[in-house]
C-alpha cells in the first residue's frame, strides 16, 4: 500500500517549466480520454478534430489567433496590474465599456474614411476601458478601497449598461423593436490579414510587446515591479505609489477596452451583450498561467485560444457542451498544474508512515 503526497521541492526546477508543462498536458489528455470514453466518444477522433480545428491549417490558425487577441489583451490587463501587486478582476467590464465607447465612435464616425474610422474605433475602445477603470483606480490610490471588489462590481454595471443601450437608445430602428444594436459601417471593420484573422492580431501583439518591454526594461516598469514587491520598499526607493497605482489600473482598463474595440470591429460587428464572452475572466487565468508577466501573455493566450477553439469544435461531433467545457478546463488545469509541479512533486509514500521501506515513484523529477 502506498499513497501519493505532494511534497514541496527543495528547489524549483530549473528549466523545468517546458517539461512539467508537457507532463501536465499529457496527464490532462489522459484524464480526457477516460472522460471521452465514458461519454461514449472516440478520443482519437475527438483529439484529432480539436487539433485540426485549432491549429490544423492557416485557416484554423486564423480563427485561433482571432480568439487569442481578446484573451491576450485581457490577460495583459490583469498581468500589468498584477506586476504591481494589484488585482484587476474587472477586465470583463472594461471590455464591455471599450466596446460601448467604440460603438459610440462608430455611430458618430459613419462618414469618416475607413482608416480614420477604424483607428478611432480602437482608440474609443481604449478610452472606454480606461474610463471604466478610472473609478476603481482613484478609489484605490486615494482612499485605499480594495480594487478587487470595485472592479468586479463594475462588471455587472457594464453589462447592464450594454443591455440598456441595446434595448433602449441604440436599438436599431430597422429591427422592429427587437433588441439589436445596428451594425457598424463596413468601412469601420478591421481589415483581414489572412484567412479570417484581422489586423487586431497585430495590434494586440504590438501592445503586448510594448508592455512587456515597458515592464521589464524601463524605469517605469522597474518602479512597477518594485511596488509589486512591497509598498514600503517602493516608498523607500522614492516611488510615488498613489499616482502609479492609479495610472496602472487605468492603463489596464485601456488594454482591456482595446480588446472590446477589436471585438466590435473585428468579430461581432455590432454591440452585443455577449461581446465580452467571458474573456475578462479568462484573462485572469491567462495572466496566472503567464505568472503575471506581460511577456508571457501572448504565448499563453494562443494556447488558451487554441484550447477554446478546438474544444468548441468537438461539439459539432456530438460532444456535449459540458463535456467539452470540462475537457478545456482539464487541459488548462493541466498547464496550471504544471506550474505547481515545477515547485512541488508528487511522491508515493508507504501507506503506513512507520514503514521506511518501498521505493517511491516520483512524478516530475527533472534535476
Amino acid at each position, binding site marked *: 500500500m502506498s499513497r501519493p503526497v505532494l511534497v514541496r521541492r527543495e*528547489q524549483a526546477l530549473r528549466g523545468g517549466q517546458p517539461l512539467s508543462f508537457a507532463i501536465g498536458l499529457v496527464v490532462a489528455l489522459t484524464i480526457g480520454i477516460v472522460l471521452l470514453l465514458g461519454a461514449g466518444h472516440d478520443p482519437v477522433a475527438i483529439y484529432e478534430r480539436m487539433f485540426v480545428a485549432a491549429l490544423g491549417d492557416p485557416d484554423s490558425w486564423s480563427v485561433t489567433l482571432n480568439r487569442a487577441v481578446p484573451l491576450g489583451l485581457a490577460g495583459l490587463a490583469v498581468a500589468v496590474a498584477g506586476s504591481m501587486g494589484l488585482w484587476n478582476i474587472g477586465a470583463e467590464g472594461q471590455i464591455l465599456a471599450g466596446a460601448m465607447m467604440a460603438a459610440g465612435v462608430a455611430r458618430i464616425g459613419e462618414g469618416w474614411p475607413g482608416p480614420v474610422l477604424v483607428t478611432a474605433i480602437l482608440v474609443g475602445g481604449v478610452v472606454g476601458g480606461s474610463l471604466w477603470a478610472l473609478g476603481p483606480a482613484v478609489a484605490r490610490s486615494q482612499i485605499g478601497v480594495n480594487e478587487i471588489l470595485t472592479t468586479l462590481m463594475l462588471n455587472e454595471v457594464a453589462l447592464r449598461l450594454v443591455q440598456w443601450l441595446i434595448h433602449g437608445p441604440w436599438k436599431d430602428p430597422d429591427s422592429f423593436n427587437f433588441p439589436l444594436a445596428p451594425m457598424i459601417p463596413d468601412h469601420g471593420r478591421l481589415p483581414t490579414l489572412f484567412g479570417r484573422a484581422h489586423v487586431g492580431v497585430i495590434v494586440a501583439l504590438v501592445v503586448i510587446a510594448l508592455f512587456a518591454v515597458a515592464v521589464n*526594461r524601463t524605469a517605469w516598469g*522597474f518602479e512597477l515591479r518594485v511596488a509589486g514587491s512591497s509598498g514600503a*520598499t517602493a516608498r523607500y526607493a*522614492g516611488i510615488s505609489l498613489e499616482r502609479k497605482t492609479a495610472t496602472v489600473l487605468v492603463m489596464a482598463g485601456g488594454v482591456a477596452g482595446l480588446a472590446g474595440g477589436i471585438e466590435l470591429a473585428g468579430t461581432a460587428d455590432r454591440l452585443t451583450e455577449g461581446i465580452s464572452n467571458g474573456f475578462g475572466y479568462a484573462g485572469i487565468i491567462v495572466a496566472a498561467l503567464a505568472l503575471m508577466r506581460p511577456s508571457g501573455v501572448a504565448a499563453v493566450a494562443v494556447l488558451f485560444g487554441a484550447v477554446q477553439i478546438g474544444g468548441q469544435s468537438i461539439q459539432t461531433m456530438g460532444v456535449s457542451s459540458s463535456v467539452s467545457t470540462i475537457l478545456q478546463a482539464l487541459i488548462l488545469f493541466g498547464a496550471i498544474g504544471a506550474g505547481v509541479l515545477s515547485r512541488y512533486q508528487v511522491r508515493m509514500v508507504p501507506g503506513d508512515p512507520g514503514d521506511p521501506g518501498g521505493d*517511491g515513484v516520483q512524478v516530475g523529477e527533472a534535476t
Partner: protein
Amino acid sequence: MSDIWKRFPGVVANAGANLSVSRGSIHAVLGENGAGKSTLMNVLAGVYRPDEGEVRVEGVAHRFRTPADALAAGIGMVHQEFRLVPSFTVAENVVLGAAARILRRQAIEDEVADLAEQFGLATRPDRPVWQLSMGERQRVEILKALWRDAHILILDEPTAVLTPAEADELGVVLRAMADAGRSVIFISHKLHEVTGFCDEATVLRGGRTVAASVRVADTDAGELASLMVGSSPMTTERPPAHPAGPPLLEVSGLSALGDRGLPALQSVDLTVRSGEIVGIAGVAGNGQRELCQVVAGLRSATAGTVHLAGDDLTGASPRKLFQAGLGYIPEDRLGVGLAPRLSVVDNSILRTYEAHRRGPFIVAERAEAHCVDLVERFGVRTGPLDDPMAGLSGGNLQRLLVGRELSGRPRVVVAAQPTRGLDVQGVKAIQDLLVEARDEGAAVLLVSEDLDELLTLADRLVVMHDGEIVGEFDPTTAARSEIGEAMIGHGAGVGS
C-alpha cells in the same frame, strides 16, 4: 549522521557532514549562516533527502522521505517560524493531525496539561494560541513534538524570538527533557547560550563538520567562535577614535506619531558630526524606529526639523534625501530595504535606477556593471545576478543592502539594527563597513539592541526611552548598569 552530502544547483550545502548525538544530552550545532546547519537538520527531520550518507537512529539506518517518516523514528523539529493555528487552543494545536480518534476537549486538555507538567512547560491548554506570547507559542511547538513521542528534538534557533528571561526558562525545560532521557539538538549562533546550557557542541563550517561533539565544559566561547569563522576569535577592540568634524545631521525638536497614531517621538534633539558614530540604545519600541524613519523621509514629523549638512530637509522625500547624501539601512531588510522577488541587479539599483536611465529605459549593462561592482567591493556571495534576491543568505542580503547605501559615499548614514540576525562574519563585515564610512568622514547614526555592539562602535551613545532622549554616555567610560537604568527610564543620564 555520517558523511552527509547534499547538493543544490550551484551550491554544496553539506559536504560530508557528521553529527553524533548521545541520549539524554543537549547538543549544540554551531555554524555561521550558510555553514550547512539548516540543511543538515532538514535532512535529519526528513524534509530533505541526502544525496549521500547515512542517518542512524539508535543503530538502525533510516531513509526518511517525509517529516512524518522522521517523526515515526522519534525525530521532531521545532522550526523557527511556528506552525500553529492561531484560533485553535493550545491542546487542539498539540493534537492537531496526530490523533486518529474522536477528541473530547476536556480529555485532551488534561493529557496535554500532564505532558506539560512532566517537563516543566508552563502552558494553558485551553487558551487560544493567538493570545499567547512568542515564548508560550514555542512551548506549544515543543509539546507538539513531545506528544508525537519525539525522542530527539531539533530546535532551530529557538531563542531568536525569545526575551532573555524566556530563553533562560527554555534552558530549564530543555534540561528537564535531557534528564528524562530525550536528546535535544540546539541550533544557534549565540555562543553564550551554548556555553550556558548545552552539554556538547558540533561546529559546521562550509558544509563540513570541523569539530564533532566537543564537550562544552572543556572549551570556551572564544574557541567555539574561532572554529565557526575559521580565523582568530572575534575582535572586541574599539576601532581607533577619530576627531569629530562639523555637524552633518542635526535633528531638533523632532516629534512624530507611531503606526497607531500615538506620539512616538517627542522633541528629540540630536547632532551627529562628520567622522563620528552616534549610537542609540534603548529597549525596542521606544522611538528609535520612528526616529530613523523620519530622518530617512519615510515618516512625517509633527514638529521639529532635520538638517543635512546645514540644509533643511524636513519632510523631504526618501529619494531627495538619498540624493542629498543620506544612506539608510532600514531595520526591515526584506520588507523595506530590498525587493526580494526582484533580481540582484534590480536590488542593487533600487535607489539609483534613475541614474541608469537612457530615455525611458534602464540601461541593463550599466545596471549590471553597478551590481557587479557592489558584489565585488562588498564581498556579496550570489548566484546568477538575474536570480531573485530572496535566494541570497541573510548576511549576503545585508552586505548588498549596506554596500548599496554606502557605495555613493553618503555624508550621513542611518543604520537601524544593521547586524541583527547575522552570523559572526557577517556582523564583523557590516561593522567594519560602518567604521570605514565614519573614517571617510560620514556621520553615522547607529541604532542597535546589542549594547556590546554600541559600546564597541559608537563614539557617543544616547539612550532613548518613551520617545525621548533620556541620556548621553561616553562609551569608553560609562558603566553598563548606568546605561541599563537609563534604558528602562530610571535615573538621569549623564548630562549632554
